[in-house]
């Protein structure tokens, strides 16, 4: 793990309040869960039907029918519950997930999120992405600020296929924390050693201090 990723994960962790329900998207967001103390009163939701995921199983204790939405073997914490997908998405769409931490391909300053499809790329599918983005009470995006091709992921408007409009409340990147406020992002904080000007240079939308 790079230093910046570690800082990103810890900053995302700080968004989590006790006794709440949190859904962590596939990839970097999933790893936020690894930082949670085992006895933290936080209930990780997995859209395939778990509220209260625990850590990965001990070697030899994995159960093929106890997986998360990334199809990884997982465990249950004390006070967990299992249920079917209809109830799971009632929970998600109905606003009972307090916080979703999701990955992104692009986020716009108006809160639009694109995280399911790259034009011309392989079709991966939608899964629970649209429901989570549209339904969670609070949506925090956790992503590197700049894509591998050098383009900024924080833009004035998304150009990739939309996941949900106006859905994102906060973006945590390796450069800092930015809230979409309409025509611009507001800079909530900057990562260690990052200047506002540097962040602005790498962002496709205005950033207000």
């Amino acid at each position, binding site marked *: 793990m790079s230093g910046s990723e570690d800082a990103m994960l810890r900053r995302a962790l700080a968004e989590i309040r006790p006794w709440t329900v949190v859904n962590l998207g596939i990839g970097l967001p999933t790893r936020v869960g690894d930082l949670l103390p085992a006895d933290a009163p936080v209930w990780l939701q*997995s*859209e*395939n*039907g*778990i509220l209260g995921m625990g*850590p*990965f*199983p*001990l*070697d*030899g*204790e*994995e*159960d*093929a*029918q*106890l*997986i998360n*939405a*990334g*199809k*990884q*073997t*997982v465990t*249950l914490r004390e006070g967990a519950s*299992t*249920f*079917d*997908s*209809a109830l*799971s*998405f009632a929970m*998600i*769409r109905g606003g009972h997930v307090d916080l979703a931490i999701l990955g992104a391909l692009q986020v716009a300053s108006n809160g639009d999120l694109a995280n399911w499809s790259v034009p011309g790329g*392989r*079709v*991966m*599918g*939608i*899964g*629970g*992405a*649209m*429901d989570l983005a*549209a*339904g969670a009470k609070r949506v925090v995006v956790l992503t590197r600020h700049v894509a591998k091709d050098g383009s900024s992921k924080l833009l004035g408007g998304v150009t990739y*296929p*939309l*996941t*949900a*409009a106006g859905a994102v409340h906060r973006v945590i990147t390796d450069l800092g924390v930015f809230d979409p406020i309409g025509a611009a992002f507001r800079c909530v904080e900057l990562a260690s050693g990052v200047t506002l000007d540097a962040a602005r240079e790498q962002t496709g939308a205005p950033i207000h201090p």
Partner: protein
Amino acid sequence: MSRGKRVDDVASALEGLEDGAVVGVSGFGLSSNPEALIAGVLDAGARDLTLVSNNAGAMGLGLATWLQAGIVARVICTYVGSNHDLQRALSTGSVSVELVPQGTFVERLRAAGAGIPAFYTPTGVGTVVAEGKEVRTIAGRACLLEHALPLDFALVRVHRADPFGNVRFWRTQANFAPAMAMAARVAVAEAEQIVPLGGIDADDVHLPGAFVQRVLHVPTHADVIEHRIVRPR
């Protein structure tokens, strides 16, 4: 033990499955698959199927074998991911694929089973999913009109069943099974364990027998794990 809705073999479980049928199959990737029923459909001879499944198989296994065998004309799913057979079918156009957000997917099944012909959801507004659909603002929020998705057959994996078809699931085994069973004209439960009537307390039934038409006992499964992640001891 009373026979009830139990059938003796896969062929009996799939009796009446015809060409062009809409078939829902529960499971999340290769997890919690009704493996005997999936294999049985390959032998049953029905073609031109519409497959309703979250992933339509993975790693060339499970429902991917239906794609390989060419018995599927149309897939309604939420995720393609690393299902190479579905990727190939998509790119060659050999099957038509309808991608649905997972919450809408399961709610459409639940609606079909619950006698709700259509509903409005905020999910997918402004996205490709909205194409061709009615958009309506309700209580200040733009929503899509989505329709019930009824099935001819539902093939679902369950942990325990009694002869009436009362069912319990194990851990994340339920996923789409209850909604699919509710949505289907014929729901077949592939059960790891069979117990007599009364073997499941009334308060412990996950899916009442009213939603299950046939019960097939299949005690062992391959249960391939796609991403085995463990902590060292």
